[in-house]
């Protein structure tokens, strides 16, 4: 039987998916800097959570983040990707019971 997934592991998956979303968003040339600054700001917030709670079992947040990753995996429109660069980390944080 495998060990239950930890918060650090789901945040690793979330961060990898988030990088893919950023790659879609940064194809809007005028928003390149905003996309990168936004991505950096939210990565830092997720890293804070990983540092504080990484070893905890993910529980229901595991399937939640998996579902959110599936949601952003469907996005091909770069404008919508930019919207989700803000929304996705918020969803992850709410799933973990964290403040924004």
């Amino acid at each position: 039987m495998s060990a239950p997934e930890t918060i650090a592991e789901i945040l690793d998956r979330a961060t990898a998916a988030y990088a893919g979303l950023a790659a879609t968003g940064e194809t809007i040339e005028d928003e390149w800097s905003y996309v990168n600054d936004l991505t950096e700001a939210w990565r830092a917030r997720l890293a804070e959570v990983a540092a504080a709670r990484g070893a905890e079992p993910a529980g229901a947040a595991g399937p939640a983040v998996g579902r959110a990753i599936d949601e952003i995996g469907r996005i091909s429109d770069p404008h919508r990707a930019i919207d989700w660069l803000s929304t996705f980390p918020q969803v992850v944080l709410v799933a973990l019971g964290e403040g924004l």
Partner: protein
Amino acid sequence: MRFQDAAKDARTVVYAAIQAEPLVARAADLLAAATPAERVLARAVMNGETTDPDGWRVTFPTLFDPALPSAARERAEAILALSLEVAERGDQVRSQVRGAIVEALTERLLVRRVGAAAVRRERRILFDGVRAEIHPYDLTVEKPGAAEAWDCKWGARGIGPDVLHQLHDARTHAAAEGEKLLAGLVIFDAARSCRVRLARQTAPRDGIGVATIETLSRLGGGAPAGGKG
């Protein structure tokens, strides 16, 4: 400083029909009483690619936990159902509906604080010797000595130089007339994203208020019935 109705053009007539949709009013009522996490649910679903309610319940376990009080779960269910109605619209319409919801939500909150008589939609602010602005403010509070002007945006990306200049100029002109005007943005997005967006702007932004998903309820003068926010 005085307030004036904006002229109605074809765009405003079309948009007025969207603003008048019962869906917009229901969303505003629900979101005015929502917690920040519930507002994130609305934002995600209304922005979403998928419209399967069970999938969204899995995505937000802290809002649909059976151990929660029934009132909280019922509110989350109502927000989910309504947000799915928005998501099921075509792309262009849902974008308009989302914008109208943020405006209607802001109106609810302002009315809660200052009363319905003082809150107006789509108004211009005129100053002596200053050419009138092209775009009206989404919401104004028209109280002597305590006037306010608010522009509403669905996301942080809506923050740009035009709106910042307009709000800043309005404050400056009001001050030149010895009037107090609180000018600000209501952004249905997280404060962190708004800070990132604002940091990139060269337009003046000192003194401009920004209400976000986390702080929206302060527009209404306090915490919502649903919890912190």
